[in-house]
């Protein structure tokens, strides 16, 4: 067991010692066990790998490693081999013996496991060859594939905590200046200049100050912070320690949503490891900095991603936001100066401290420096985490890294910024993405969720979905938000169920206006963005619903009917067998028919039909 690191010299020596033991010739086989791959059976693959390597007696020269999310979720379970950098996708337990024998020990490729780039049909061997990765600049996520998140030594061996050592040497003033100059803006959604926030906390009066990490990540479809916490928890910790140093904070919290139990485990373990090495606690690395952290879990409330609601939660109260005329940097947690930043924001800090503000500014745009991790999901081929410089276009993200829309369907919209954001149509694909451009177009960056929608997505249904989510997450304090959002959801329900009229739309707009203008916190004020942006860019779809009682995307149940195509049906009876309402009749090998009175539009018949004979009008 390594002893406490007494000073930066000890840290450097420890790193050297680790390098000496870790031969660069050594093979490392990394299996991604991030949430997505884990859900896809990656743990079994990892265990099979370990067993196989053991069996070959190769454990000495081959290291099996379970890593955090690599971002390429569509290809999961993912297996990478270093130092070659070979990437295998969709790996199953039964593939493992072949992989170990042929590739790890034999140096040959198992071609069927390689990623094939659809337009060129070319096999990609290494990460850099895969378009998904080629379009990215993985500053924050890169190490996810290279380290075991449960090992602080892996992190240190890769250079971890050298940013902290450098910061302690620079002095807190210089660190603060560097973060200010870097132009780093909060990655949680608001994009507030981080340096300015830090300075406010530093200047605030009070002996005891707190730093908080917002890992509540409530936007549905966004899992960047989960990937960082699960895959490289020390990168976040190091950022927080540097921040505590710069601001004069002594205590901190990492607030993790309760839906992320693995992230809670990883960050808790990382904190224990850091403490054991003296990177947390008294006199860190022999400096004047004394700082320690606690992990707090959320209870299941999206609103607690809002800073003041999070602090209420940390104080054992209901997560109700409060007005912020007095900044939280002056009076936050327990009435004391508090600096709250998002996970990804904290993860940027060690890079800035180590490589400097000028380096940081060299990436991204004038107003938004650095990279951003986007969670690219929905109707897109390469679902996963995409890290790109700010200023990359939506097109590059969705069609470049994302590989476009599956099934030959037409792109319809991309929703950014989570429930607080808006939907942008095809003619906005060339917008370079940064904080300000997205706001100008009626959306926002938010935490980085990017949901791709195609011609089979009904935008009215999407607006309704977001309203339902936000209405259920409203803390209930404000009349405008609590009751306004519930009614807006009902009104959208009227529209999707064929009861809507032009008056309904007018009422939606009027009520949305008041919800936006008079709600206390950003949940309420931005809740109207999805419905207002879809009304702005997809108004004709709303009008079809109210004027023609028609859902152009064939989604809204009350406005569609299911029928069977006489040309294609071969009477296999599969649909009739599976129909939960027994609404389909037909003789074997004869055309089947759906009884409209009984049909509940569940869509099972369409799912099971092998002949594409079920039509939806």
């Amino acid at each position, binding site marked *: 067991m390594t002893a406490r690191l007494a000073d930066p010299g000890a840290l450097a020596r420890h790193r050297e010692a680790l390098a000496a033991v870790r031969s660069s010739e050594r093979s490392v086989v990394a299996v991604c066990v991030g949430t997505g791959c884990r859900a896809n059976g990656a743990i079994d693959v990892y265990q099979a790998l370990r067993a196989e390597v053991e069996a070959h007696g190769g454990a000495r020269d081959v290291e099996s490693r379970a890593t955090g999310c690599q971002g390429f979720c569509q290809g999961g379970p993912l297996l990478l081999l270093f130092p070659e950098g070979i990437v295998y996708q969709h790996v199953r337990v039964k593939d493992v013996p072949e992989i170990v024998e042929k590739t790890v020990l034999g140096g040959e490729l198992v071609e069927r496991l390689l990623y094939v780039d659809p337009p060129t049909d070319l096999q990609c061997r290494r990460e850099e060859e895969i378009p998904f990765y080629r379009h990215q600049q993985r500053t924050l996520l890169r190490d996810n594939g290279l380290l075991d998140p449960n090992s602080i030594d892996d992190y240190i061996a890769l250079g971890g905590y050298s940013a902290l050592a450098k910061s302690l040497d620079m002095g807190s003033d210089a660190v603060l200046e560097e973060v200010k100059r870097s132009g780093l803006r909060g990655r949680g959604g608001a994009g507030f200049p981080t340096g300015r926030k830090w300075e406010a906390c530093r200047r605030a009066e009070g002996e005891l100050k707190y730093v908080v990490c917002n890992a509540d990540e409530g936007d549905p479809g966004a899992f960047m912070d989960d990937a960082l916490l699960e895959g490289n928890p020390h990168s976040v910790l190091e950022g927080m320690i540097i921040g505590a140093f710069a601001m004069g904070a002594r205590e901190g919290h990492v607030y993790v949503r309760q839906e992320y139990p693995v992230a809670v485990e990883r960050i808790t373990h990382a904190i224990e490891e850091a403490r054991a090495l003296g990177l947390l606690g008294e006199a860190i690395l022999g400096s004047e900095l004394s700082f320690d952290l606690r992990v707090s879990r959320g209870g299941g409330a999206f609103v607690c991603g809002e800073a003041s609601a999070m602090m209420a939660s940390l104080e054992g109260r209901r997560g109700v936001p409060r007005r912020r005329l007095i900044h939280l940097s002056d009076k936050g947690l327990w009435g004391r100066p508090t600096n709250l930043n998002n996970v990804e924001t904290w993860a940027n800090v060690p890079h800035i401290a180590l490589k400097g503000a000028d380096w940081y500014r060299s990436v991204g745009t004038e107003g938004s420096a650095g990279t951003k991790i986007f969670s690219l999901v929905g109707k897109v081929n390469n679902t996963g985490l995409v890290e790109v410089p700010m200023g990359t276009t939506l097109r590059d993200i969705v069609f470049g890294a994302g590989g476009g829309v599956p099934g030959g369907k037409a792109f319809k919209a991309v929703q950014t910024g989570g429930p607080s954001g808006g939907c942008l149509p095809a003619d906005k694909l060339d917008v370079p993405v940064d904080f300000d451009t997205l706001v100008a177009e009626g959306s926002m960056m938010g935490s980085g969720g990017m949901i791709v929608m195609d011609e089979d997505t009904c935008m009215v249904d999407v607006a309704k979905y977001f309203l339902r989510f936000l209405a259920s997450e*409203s803390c*209930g304090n404000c*009349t405008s938000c609590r009751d306004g959002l519930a*009614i807006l959801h009902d009104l959208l329900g009227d529209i999707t169920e064929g009861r809507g009229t032009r008056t309904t739309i007018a009422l939606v707009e009027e009520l949305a206006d008041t919800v936006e203008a008079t*709600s*206390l916190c950003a949940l309420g004020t931005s809740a109207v963005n999805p419905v207002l942006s879809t009304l702005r860019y997809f108004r004709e779809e709303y009008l079809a619903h109210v004027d023609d009682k028609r859902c152009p995307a064939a989604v809204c149940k009350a406005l569609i009917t299911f029928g069977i195509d006489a040309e294609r049906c071969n009477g296999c009876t599969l649909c009739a067998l599976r129909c939960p309402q027994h609404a389909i009749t037909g003789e074997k090998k004869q055309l089947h028919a759906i009884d409209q009175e009984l049909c509940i539009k569940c869509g099972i018949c369409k799912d099971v039909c092998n002949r594409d004979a079920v039509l939806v009008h």
Partner: protein
Amino acid sequence: MDVELIIDDVQVTAPEGASVLDAARRAGVDIPALCHHEAVPAIASCRLCLMEVRRPGRDWVQLTTSCDYPVSAGLVVVTDSPRIRKHRAMNLQLLLRRAPDAPVLRRLAEEFGVTKPLFAPVTDAPLQDCILCELCVRVCSALGYDALAAIGRGEHKRIGPPFGQAAAEDCVGCGSCVEACPTDCIAMEDTATTRTIWGRTFDLQACERCGRPIATREHAAATAAATELPDKNDGLCDGCKRRLVSERLAAPGR
């Protein structure tokens, strides 16, 4: 330390720490507010007390609530404008949906031109006419009883004793919540000798002289315990106490 600000073009002086709502009311400007009470912290729930405010040195005007906005030097406040009326009217519509018959809401509706309800009234709420302003909860807590809880969140938030109890175990029957409630939705029934509220029936102590009910035994005991004074009721209601004092003062030989 007093603060100078401008409300509706009039210079107003207010004590530091006061809210703009308080300052306005003191200056004779009535801003409607249902969830507000001087004795408890503001939560800005009803969203009626809207104002437009500009901070000194800025040219940007903010539409916001006034009950939870502390006064500061040089604030410029407007309490009435088309924008304020428009949004106040819509929030009134939302409140009327929960409490269609509450007199105060009907008065405000008339005053602010809300003639036709836009939304069908809520009829299945656990407490009819409750506008979820939490005044009862805050008042009860300020008095130290904490008998009522805000339960759940969002549209399904409701007020009641904790644990879904039919009878509020920490209630002392003081009736302060009833006094505070803007829509009069808390049921309290007094007889000559009992009070029934929040599922509990309390015995009312009667005045020894005139026989009228004073307070519940529990309330009297809690007040005595809180003030550390001897049971100050002396078994008399306020009126009879005053009469007793007058009698003693008027007695011959004094």
